[in-house]
């Protein structure tokens, strides 16, 4: 499996979002169907998607609409568009026949602002956002390790920050044992060194 099974958000076509929650499809078959998805009838009924159900081990319940989150997101988009419009205007709006540096960004930001308003209007109905959970702190930790990597790589090379990052991910974010984490971190860095510095002579800052 790829980097962790991902829960599928319900990507219904924007207009048809919300509606009745899709029922769980027929019992997930063991493993995927051989020759591609079972012949899907033209326009399958919402939810009875044999391809999707081929992923075992998932909760299939789609997300409920979250009006508050959606409104917040829509506001962010609209605000971003508006700020962008202002920034583009200051670059010089120009005219359609003689565009200036800011003409195109202005058009794009204007469209984004309008779309943000549309999102605001449909905030009650859209059902493709997820909530933050207790595990969300892991994200911050993950980003923190990457920030640490960036901060240290210029001064002490990539070996130590990489090893630390791998260790933190393995032990704390991945729940592996101390020994495995430590050993794996060292091995990973050694492999990277061999490939990037040894084989490819990439001029990445390195200590050894």
């Amino acid at each position, binding site marked *: 499996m790829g*980097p962790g099974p991902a829960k599928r958000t319900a990507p219904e076509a*924007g207009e048809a979002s919300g509606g009745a929650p899709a029922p769980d499809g027929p019992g997930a078959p063991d493993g995927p169907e051989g020759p591609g998805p079972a012949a899907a009838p033209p326009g399958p009924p919402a939810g009875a998607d044999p391809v999707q159900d081929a992923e075992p081990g998932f909760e299939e319940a789609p997300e409920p609409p979250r009006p508050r989150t959606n409104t917040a*997101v829509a506001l962010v988009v609209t605000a971003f568009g508006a700020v962008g419009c202002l920034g583009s205007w200051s670059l010089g709006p120009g005219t359609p026949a003689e565009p200036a540096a800011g003409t*195109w*960004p202005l058009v794009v930001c204007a469209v984004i602002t309008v779309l943000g308003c549309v999102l605001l209007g449909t905030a009650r109905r859209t059902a493709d956002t997820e909530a933050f959970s207790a595990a969300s702190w892991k994200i911050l930790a993950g980003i923190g390790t990457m920030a640490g990597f960036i901060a240290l790589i210029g001064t002490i090379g990539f070996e130590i920050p990489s090893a630390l*990052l791998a260790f933190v991910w393995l032990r704390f974010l991945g729940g592996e044992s101390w020994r495995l984490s430590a050993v794996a971190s060292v091995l990973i860095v050694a492999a990277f060194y061999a490939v990037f510095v040894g084989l490819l002579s990439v001029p990445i800052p390195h200590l050894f």
Partner: protein
Amino acid sequence: MDSLAPMINGFGVVLEPTNLLYCLIGVVIGMLVGVLPGLGPAATIAILLPLTFGIEPVTAIIMLAGIFYGAQYGGTITSVLLRLPGEASSVVTVFDGHVMARQGRAGTALGIAAIGSFVGGTVSIVALSVVAPLVAGFALSFGPPEYTVLALLGILLVATVGNGGRVKALVAAGLGLLLATVGRDTFTGAERFTFDSLALADGLDFVPIAMGLFGIGEILHNLEQRHRAVSGAVKVTNTWPSRSDLRQSSGAIARGSVLGFVLGILPGGGATLASMASYALEKRRSRTPERFGRGAVEGVAAPETANNAAATSSFIPLLTLGIPANATMAVIFGALLIQGVPPGPQLVSQEPELFWGVINSMYIGNILLLIMSIPLVGLFVRILRIRPAILAPITVLITLVGVYTVRNSVFDIVLVVVFGALGYLMKKFGFEPGPLVLAFVLGSLLESSLRRSLLLFDGDALGFATRPISGTLLLLLLVVVLLPVARMLWSRRTAPADREKTRTGA
């Protein structure tokens, strides 16, 4: 071509043991380079240039060419297995390819990609041998107005390929277009959205954005999910596509080859546009378009065929006109110069052995790649068996180090982390990264072509319609836009008739 003799001599050149060996070396290196996200063929060729000093020009170019199209094969592997597109032309493969991997059909995805790539590459080489000089001249008639319309077509296609909410896809695309404007404006020198950072003066690069949004974003998102999902590796079956998979994809492969060949000849933007166009074409042609984005095998076959065909045909402008069509061609251009073989319109007549030697080596290279893929697919698929907890930090580190190799810049690592955070947030809130990345690639092409066209037309937009090629493309654009509308109106007109039938029939 005047006679078949030079072409046949070319095979003689290729089959010399040294050249065969270097061809093999090239495609192997290329495949490995393609697997490593970030380190692209252009950078690799640059690193390996010193190695080419001591060998014959033909041999050197055979190896370098092998690296290039070998990298296309390799790029698919990370797209499918790790959701990390290393090149702009592999982004579209992610849509269905990675889903197939999560369904345990990674082998099918990689296998059909290998087959499609082989067919696309071979068709392209054959076409190249036959029509190279003719189409090269045609490529020159593509000026800014034509590129504008093509880019517009591309942006429209972007809306088609997504699967999620339309409005959010458009917002993502808008953000992509905006990100493309960052940097020093080519036309006025004004700094746009650079916040006084010199590193942003040349604008953002595709690789940090794509790797951040797709790779790091996905990994961060999975951190949250892990404890919820039942951890258990999906049973990995299908280490090779089945016969019905092949049958299903045959149309996609055929159409992708042609589309890729045609679009690859255009300097700048060929392979990406080709992969998107072929994906969108298949999705529209299909009677069951909702399968796309959920593991449709054509969704992998089409773009992979097209991007390999385009990669091969992008040699045409270089070898027949001496004009490099993309960054990798520019490095190969440099390599030729170093070897004392200046590429130009006279290359074909002055150095027929080199020309045909290189072209014919591509047949061999493609065959070698296909043969190598067979065992390698099984090997790579095993990577998916590694526990996600272990694979995650490895992928993160590959991304961080890999992105550094693009411009030897720590700033790019910062970018990839920033976009990783953005990718996570986008996934949380229902925005798809695909439209953003594709719009980013097309956005700068669209804006600069549009502004150049207006300069050429002295501000008169009617010029788009009066030029023959851009006029034709505009018509095509209108057809593409209006067709679904027409179809809808048509079905509404026939629907009442059906209702009549059911009423009377029942």
